[in-house]
Every structure is written in C-alpha cells, then in structure tokens.
C-alpha cells in the first residue's frame, strides 16, 4: 500500500461538528465516515435500549451528540438513514417517561429538524408528538412539545392552508375529547385549538366543533376552557390581528437618508433592502381585503341543541359539581347563545329565579346573564315573575342604594329587549324611585322611565308620559308592538339616494330637451348600463393605471336587465305621470321627502331597491348623503338604545353594565377625583416652540447651525470663546444690526403695541 494522502478528518479526533460541516459540503466523499458514525450510533442505540433510563454522559461522545449529528445530515444520505426517524420515534414514544431530560429534548428537536428538512411529513411528526404531549408527566416536556406542535402547524399553514393536515389534527383532537369526557387530557385539545384560532390558522367550523365538545365535557378545566373560548376567543383573535398590524413602523425615508450619509457597507445595504421589503409587504397588507372571519358563535352548527345541552348538563343537572365561577361562565355562554340566535330555552328563565337575591354571590353576573338571555321572542309571561322578583328583592327603600340601582338597571336591561314583560302597576311603582335621594337609584329609575316613554307610554301615568309620548299616543303614531311582531327592514337614507337619482335623471333629460318627468324604457336601461359601467368608485382610476383603454363597441350593449322590451316593468313607471312638467312641483311631489315622512301613514317604503341593484358606487354615495343630512343625529334616543342593544347582541352584557349606575351615587375619593380630572391629558406643559422642535426632531429633519452651537457642550466652547475685541467684522455687523432691530421692535420680546 503506497503512501496515502492524509485526509483532513484524520487530524481531528472525535469532532462531530467538524464532520457535520464537511458532510454537508460534500456528502459523496464522506459517505464512509458517515457510515461509520451511523454504525456507532446503532451500537449506542442498542446499548441504550438495554437500559433506557441510564445516562451515557460519561463518554466523550454520547448518544445525544450522535443523534444530533445524524439528524443534521440525514437528508444527505436518505438511503442509509431510512430507518433513523422510525428509531427515534420508537425511542421517544416507548421510553419518554424514563429518558434523561436532555436526551429527550434532543430527540424531540431532531424529529422537528427532520420534519423541517422534509425527511418525515408533518402528520407523522404530529401523530408522534401529540400522544406524548397528552400522556407525559413531565411539565417541561409538555411545554416543549406544545410549542413544537404549534410551530409545526403554523409553518405548514404559512403558504396556504394545509387542509389535509388540519383535518387530521382536528379529528385527533375531536377524538381525544369525545373518547373520554371525564379525563383532563382534553385541555390540550382546547389549548391547541384556541391558539390556532387566535392566530387565524383555524377559522372553520370544525375547530368550533372541537370547542363545543370541550364545553360539553365532564372535566371542569376542559369545560371552562371551552366556554371561555366562546366568550373571549374572537376578541383575542381581533386583538392579535391588531397587534401584528402595527409592529414597528419603519421610516424608509430616514433609512435612505442615513444610507446616503453613513459609510456604505454590505450589511447596511442589506438592511435597507430588508426594510424596503417590509414596507412593501405592509403596504400590500394594508390594501389587502379584510379577511372575512366568522365568529365562533356564528359558526356553530346547532346553537339550539348546544345551548340546551349545555344548560341541562352543567346548570340544571343537580349532580354537576361545577364551582360557582365556572357555572356563571357556562350560564354566560348559554344566555349569550340564546340572545344572539334568539333561541327558546324556557327552563332557563325559571332557573334564574333561585339566584335573584341580593345576598347571592356575584349576583350582578346573574342579572347580566338574565338580561342577555332576553330577546323579543321570549314569552312575556315567563319574564314577568322574574322582574317581579327583582323588584321585590332589590328595589325597596330598605335595600342599600347600590342594590336598588343594580336592580332597577337590570330591569331596564331586560325591558329594552322585551318591553312586554312589564305591567303598569309595577312600572309606576318603579318609576317613583326617580325621586330617590341616591343618585344611582334616581338615574336608573329615570332610565326606565325614558325607555317606557318610547316603547310603552300607556303603561305610565299620564303625567309621566312627557310631551312627545302623550302627543304620539293621541295621534296614534305610537302603537304598542305586539308579541312577535318585527319591524320591516329598510336601508337608512335610501330615500335620499332615490331623490338624488331622480334629480340627475331630470337634469339629463332637460339637457336633451325632453320633458323631464316622462322617461322611456330605453333611457332607463341606459341609466342602468351607465351604473354597471362605473360599478366601483375606484375602478375608474385603476383602469387608467393599467394603461388599458376601454373601447366601447357601438350598438352591442349587453342587456343586463332580464325584462323583455315590450313588457313594461311596473316599478319603472315614472311616478305621478299626470303632473305638469314643472321643476318645483316635481320636487314637491317626490314622495319621500323628509317633511312628508313625518306622517307615519304617508311614509312609503322606497321602491328603488325593487328595480335597482345598488353598486358600490351607489353605496358610497348613500353614505355621503347620510352624513350630509345627518340622519344619524335625528335618531331618537330609543333608536340609539336599540343600536346599543344590537351591540349587546354581539358583545354581551357584563356585570359591569349592571353595576354602572350604582357607582354614580358613590362619593369619589380625592385621588380618584384628581385622576379623573387629569384624564389622559399630558402632564407637563410644553411651549409651542418646544413642541415644534420635538416634531422636527422626530421627523428626522436637520437643525440649524445656531441650534447646534447652542447644544454644544459648554466645556468644548470655552477654548473658542472670544472677547469683544476679537470678533470678526461679520459678527460685529450682526450684533449691531441686532441692536437696531431690537430697538425698532421695542425690546427683545417685540412689543407689538408700541
């Protein structure tokens, strides 16, 4: 055997990191070395399997190092390492309880690494890790596995939703929850689902279904986890989305400017590029359409069944041993579902009866739940005893002022949603409390009074009704809404839009020299086509940007309306065609002017929608018109309150809402008063110049030489301080000029009065 070249590896002893580096650069040449290491790993593994609990840290090279090495270069030798992932999986799933913690973590990390190098696929990894997560007694391993599982799920959903993987994992989680309802293991399903929901990776009904099963479990932790998800998961998701939106606003202009001035290095160039990329991405995100995510409560398949089973299982069932806190959570969810979907769970209301005493712990939550569970389809006779009980227990002269205020407010919240639940004697009694000395009680009673002035004035005494309500009753405008009656839906301000369209049409006809009011079909159709052309407000400008010019072909109009030419559509008939063609008259006769709409019978439902499809441009116009005529300001307080109630349908009533008026009566401490008076104002006063300067500095604008000189350290200027005699001619001139100027102005401050 001749003289052999000395390989580089021979110089190093037991240096796996070095070998790893070389193998990755040139896998083919180091194949034998790798093979030897792999053999070594296999013998170590056998040794280890003889006694999995022991540590082999005594030697120079441990199994942990070998596993690390092989998993890093496994992708270079797929044929040699075909069995490697399965070996690791076998070790971790059989022995995870007795493994030494470092080795255990290394194996988990290696499996994730193999997944990232695409040696194994995600479902295999997750199917390995998840059972361990559920069964291991070690807290640190659980934390590790949880993060790894989450990050893998996230990374496999980055480019696009990986439906297959999501579905398998969701099924695994679902089965975990349904297979053993009493076990606390289900908490992991809850945790994973909630996290992925928060990050908007899972937004489908399957995830909601998992949480539904969790809330119907038998373990208290799992139940509260599931219920909390429904109560707060969507809010969390929104907050998360907001957070990610405004992280680090990069000032690209400033960076560019700095790059021009400072030393140019490759690193700085790269940084600039990255910043530009980021800004571009942010712009893109800003312009991207808002992702349409339904809330979890809306994605439920069978809210009625869910609410019923939740209620019977956790609240009504005398065997359920939930703590009061979790019971309230469940109750909140049930009442939220009932209020949101207008469900009918009659036994829910009688259940509340037991808890409506001032001595009940966290009774305001119960009151809030009750208010939340009320909607206009709840039979009033079910609610009546509840209101009676609240009135008896809470609202009396003997009760504390906070209690009375809370009770009155709760009654009001219930009656906003179902006004029919009140009878006149009780209402008249309650309204008397507006004379109470306590401010909170007084305000709450006034709230009730003003509510009934609008929804049921005839229940009030005549002198309590107020002017508007009394007049409304006499005319007959105000009518009591019957049970189950719904208001006809409409688009607010649609009559304004219709009027505008009418005017536009008339103008065009006048231009053409036709009688303004009589319109023919052809013109109507032309109108329509015009509308379709400028479908979107922005689309016009975008067309120009693209550089495409639309050339319209003559006479080949696409007829979008499906009406035949000879049959006249009824809706398109010009209104009041017999009227003379007079501009002023025409305007007067427009049926939907605001002055006329004051009369209830004359209010005609606009027919615009029956023959037009509103384009986005139309909607935008409508918005403008609404703002112009300030329709919103004309809303009566009742409508405002109804809008508030609608808000509640989405957000739910909290105990804080019930407690709010009670706080009015309380005297604030001095500190509270000071804090309230200060509010969120700036603490320090700043002069306008200081503010202006700060603004300039924050914009990254430069300072004048004078300012720089002023800022300069005093000691640095000492050497250059000059006497009066040594000044330059320019300086002397400047001082003299300044003197003249000042004397002209009348002093340093420039007294304008002189």
């Amino acid at each position, binding site marked *: *055997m*001749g003289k*052999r*070249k*000395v*390989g*580089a*590896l*021979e*110089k190093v*002893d*037991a*240096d*796996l990191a070095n*070998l790893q580096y070389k193998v990755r650069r040139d896998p083919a*040449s*180091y*194949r*034998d*070395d790798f*093979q*030897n*290491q792999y*053999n*070594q790993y296999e*013998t*170590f593994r*056998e*040794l280890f*399997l*003889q006694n999995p609990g022991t540590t*082999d840290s*005594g*030697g*120079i*090279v441990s199994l942990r190092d070998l596993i690390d090495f092989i998993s890093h270069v496994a992708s270079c030798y797929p044929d040699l390492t075909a069995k490697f992932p399965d070996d690791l999986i076998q070790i971790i799933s059989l022995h995870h309880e007795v493994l030494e913690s470092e080795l255990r973590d290394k194996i988990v990390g290696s499996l994730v690494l193999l997944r990232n190098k695409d040696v194994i696929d995600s479902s295999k990894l997750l199917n390995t890790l998840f059972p361990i997560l559920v069964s291991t007694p070690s807290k640190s391993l659980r934390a590790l596995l949880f993060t790894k599982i989450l990050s893998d799920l996230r990374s496999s959903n980055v480019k696009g939703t990986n439906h297959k993987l999501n579905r398998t994992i969701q099924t695994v989680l679902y089965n975990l929850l349904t297979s053993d309802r009493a076990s606390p293991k289900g908490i992991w399903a809850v945790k994973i689902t909630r996290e992925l929901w928060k990050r908007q990776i899972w937004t489908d009904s399957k995830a909601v279904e998992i949480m539904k099963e969790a809330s119907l479990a038998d373990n208290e932790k799992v139940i509260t986890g599931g219920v909390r998800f429904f109560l707060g998961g969507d809010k969390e998701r929104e907050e998360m989305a907001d957070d990610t939106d405004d992280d680090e606003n990069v000032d690209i202009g400033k960076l560019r400017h700095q790059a021009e001035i400072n030393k140019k290095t490759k690193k700085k160039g790269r940084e600039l590029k990255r910043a530009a990329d980021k800004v571009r991405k942010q712009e893109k995100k800003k312009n991207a359409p808002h992702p349409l995510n339904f809330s979890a409560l809306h994605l439920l398949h069978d809210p009625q069944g869910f609410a019923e089973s939740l209620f019977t299982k956790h609240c009504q069932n005398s065997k359920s041993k939930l703590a009061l806190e979790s019971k309230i959570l469940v109750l909140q969810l049930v009442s939220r579902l009932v209020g949101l979907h207008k469900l009918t769970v009659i036994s829910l209301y009688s259940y509340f009866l037991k808890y409506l005493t001032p001595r009940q712990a966290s009774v305001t939550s119960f009151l809030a739940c009750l208010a939340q569970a009320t909607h206009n389809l709840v039979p009033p006779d079910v609610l009546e005893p509840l209101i009676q009980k609240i009135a008896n227990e809470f609202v009396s002269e003997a009760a504390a002022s906070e209690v009375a205020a809370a009770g009155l407010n709760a009654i009001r919240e219930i009656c906003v949603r179902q006004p029919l639940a009140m009878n006149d004697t009780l209402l008249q009694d309650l309204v008397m409390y507006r004379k109470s000395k306590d401010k909170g009680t007084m305000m709450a009673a006034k709230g009730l009074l003003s509510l009934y002035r609008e929804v049921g004035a005839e229940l009030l005494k005549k002198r309590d009704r107020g002017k508007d309500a009394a007049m409304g009753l006499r005319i007959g405008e105000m009518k009591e809404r019957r049970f189950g009656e719904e208001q006809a839906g409409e688009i607010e301000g649609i009559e304004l839009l219709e009027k505008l369209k009418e005017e536009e049409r008339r103008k065009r006809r006048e231009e053409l020299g036709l009688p303004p009011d009589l319109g023919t079909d052809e013109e109507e159709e032309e109108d329509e086509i015009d509308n379709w052309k400028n479908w979107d407000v922005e689309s016009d400008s975008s067309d120009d940007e693209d550089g495409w010019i639309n050339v319209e072909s003559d006479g080949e109009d696409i007829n979008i309306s499906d009406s035949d030419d000879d049959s006249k559509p009824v809706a398109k008939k010009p209104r009041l065609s017999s009227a003379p063609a007079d501009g002023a008259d025409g305007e007067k006769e427009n049926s939907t002017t605001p002055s006329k709409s004051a009369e209830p019978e004359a209010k005609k439902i606009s027919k615009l929608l029956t023959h037009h499809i509103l384009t986005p441009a139309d909607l935008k116009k409508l918005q403008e018109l609404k703002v112009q005529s300030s329709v919103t300001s004309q809303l009566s307080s009742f409508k405002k309150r109804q809008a508030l109630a609608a808000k509640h349908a989405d957000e739910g009533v909290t105990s804080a809402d019930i407690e709010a008026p009670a706080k009015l009566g309380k005297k604030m401490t001095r500190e509270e008063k000071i804090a309230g008076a200060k509010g969120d104002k700036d603490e320090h006063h700043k002069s306008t110049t200081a503010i202006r300067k700060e603004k300039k500095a924050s914009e990254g604008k430069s300072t004048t030489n004078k300012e720089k000189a002023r800022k300069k350290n005093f000691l640095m200027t000492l050497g250059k301080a000059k006497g009066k005699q040594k000044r330059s001619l320019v300086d002397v001139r400047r001082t003299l000029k300044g003197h003249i100027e000042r004397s002209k102005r009348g002093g340093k401050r420039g007294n304008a009065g002189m």
Partner: protein
Amino acid sequence: MGSSAKKKKEKKKDFQKAKLRVGKGKLKAANATDTSFKAKSIALKQQSLTANAPTVEALCAHHLALLNHKSDTQRRDSLAYLTTAITSNPPGIPLPQPSSVILPAVQRLILDGSSKVREQLLKLFQSLPKGDIASHTDQLLLHTRAGMTHLAGEIRVFALDVLEWLLGAAADEVVSCSGGWVKMLRCFLGLLGWQTEVSGKWSTPQSFVLPGKAGGDAKVQVKQMHALALFLRAGLVPSQSLAPVDGSGCTFPLWQTQHHLVSQRSNAYAHLNLFGAPRDEEAEMYEDREDRQRVFHDRAEPAIVVGLEQATKGGGEMGRAAAQLKKILKEGMMDYRGEDFAII
C-alpha cells in the same frame, strides 16, 4: 454645595479605622454574623460507632460506585483497587464482589476518554476469572463494537485489545451471540476500509477510513488484521475441544446424547428470542459453524479477499499479517466450498 461640618463628619465616619487596644479583644467586623447558639443537648445523627475498618466487600462496592466519578484519576484508582482486590483474593474463596456485579458496572469504561483509565480497565478484565465472562459476552461485545466504531482513534485501538481478551476468554460465545457475527464483520470491514457496497459506476476515492493517529497507520492496520484473524479463527475454524467430547460421550445404546440434552450454556434458549424485539439478519444469532460460514460467504468474503490482495501487495509487516489472515481464511472456508460444490 456648601456642606456643613456635621455632614462632613458623617461622611468621614464611614472610613474611620477602629483603633486596636492592648488587652482588648479584636474588634468584630461590621458585617460579622453571630453564629453561636444555645441548646440543651447535642446529638450527632450520623455518628459511626463501629470500631473496626469496613470490609473488603463494602470497599469494593464503594469503589464500584466511584467509577462514575468525574475525575480521571479517581476512576483509575478505583479500577486499580478493584484489580488488586481480585488478584489478591485467594483461590477457592469467592470474589469480594461477584463478576456479575463488577462487569456491568465496569464495561461502560471501554469508551472512557482517558487512556490511563482504559489501560487499568484492561488489567481488571484480565484479572477476572475466565469462566465468569461467558454469560456477559453480549453486553461486553456491544460496548466493544461501540468502541471499535468510535470517532476517537485511541478508543478504536483499545477496543481491539478488549476484543482480543474477550476472544481469549470466551471465543465461542463471542461469535455465536446475538449480532456477534455479522455486525462484528461489518465493523471490521468499516475499520479496515474494505467496504463492500460501491455505489454506482463512479470510482470512489480512497476513503478516509478511520485510522488511528496519522503516522501509526500501518501499525494500527496490522493490529486490526490480527484481531480480525483471531475473530475469524474463532468463528470459522472448527474448535478442537469439541471433537474429544464427541468421541467420549458414547454410552452404548444412546448416541450423541449431548445434542439432545439442554445446552450447558447460560440462557440456552436465547436464540429463540422469546422476549426481545424481533431481530433481522444482522442481529440474528449464528450458533453453527456452517451458518457462520454461509453468512460470511454471502456478506464479507469478497470484500475481505479484495482487501487482502491489496494488503499483500503492500508487503512488509502488513503483508505478513495479511498472509496469516489469508491462511486462516483458507482453513476456515475450506470445507464450505466443498459443500457448496457438492450441492451444486
């Protein structure tokens, strides 16, 4: 700025030096902690009341525990103590600690980083009675293999020493234990760089096989070949010890009774592998010489022949070692070839 005299005095106070006085005790430091305490009685919990020294057994157990110590010298000293305890043990009296306790504790040190520890370990091995080794061969062999594939050259060389000792003590068990034949062969091929699998048509460069240290290359290879020769002799050449047993065991009406009796070896049914994980071809036990020959022919022979040819061409000491190995190979595979031809 103008601080009062009082303030100045206060400031100075911190840095004033306490004066030492004759006849008075030394002043205590400002941060001295008072550790005195009062108690009605003082009981020492772990007070040893034995008057005589610990026994040898106890000391051995203690030193066995010390084998995990992090200091090299401590490990070596403990091994040395165990060695002297074993060698000084008069024959006929059982060892202070049985081999079945010592071996599992000690075998891990085959992979020890320090050469002194390893040398001492070999001495300890050699001091152990040979009869006790047989039942621990598979474990010892596992560690030896781990040593032979080790990344550090010294440990690889040392593992060969251990193997030689092992072959001397329990040759039969070594070649017939689970994974003892095929895996060892593969291990040797890897060591010598005579890999069998050549991927594709491309000529593979002279692999950077794992030599010892650069320079001692040839010597190491000679040593490897020597160990391989010993190993092959144990596995392939029929042992002489069996033949006389064959002859003597004729109690007239029964023939070859020893084949029908339960084997004398420990764990006689190990080859059935009733409780372990399923084995593949590599991990299988090859108890018969014929089996071993067949597997050797299938898996290792071509590579070894090619490697030997190269080594013989090299000449010198290596050539001599190669020639010896060739001889053993010829001897071991002689009858196998004949059989092969006969079957065909």
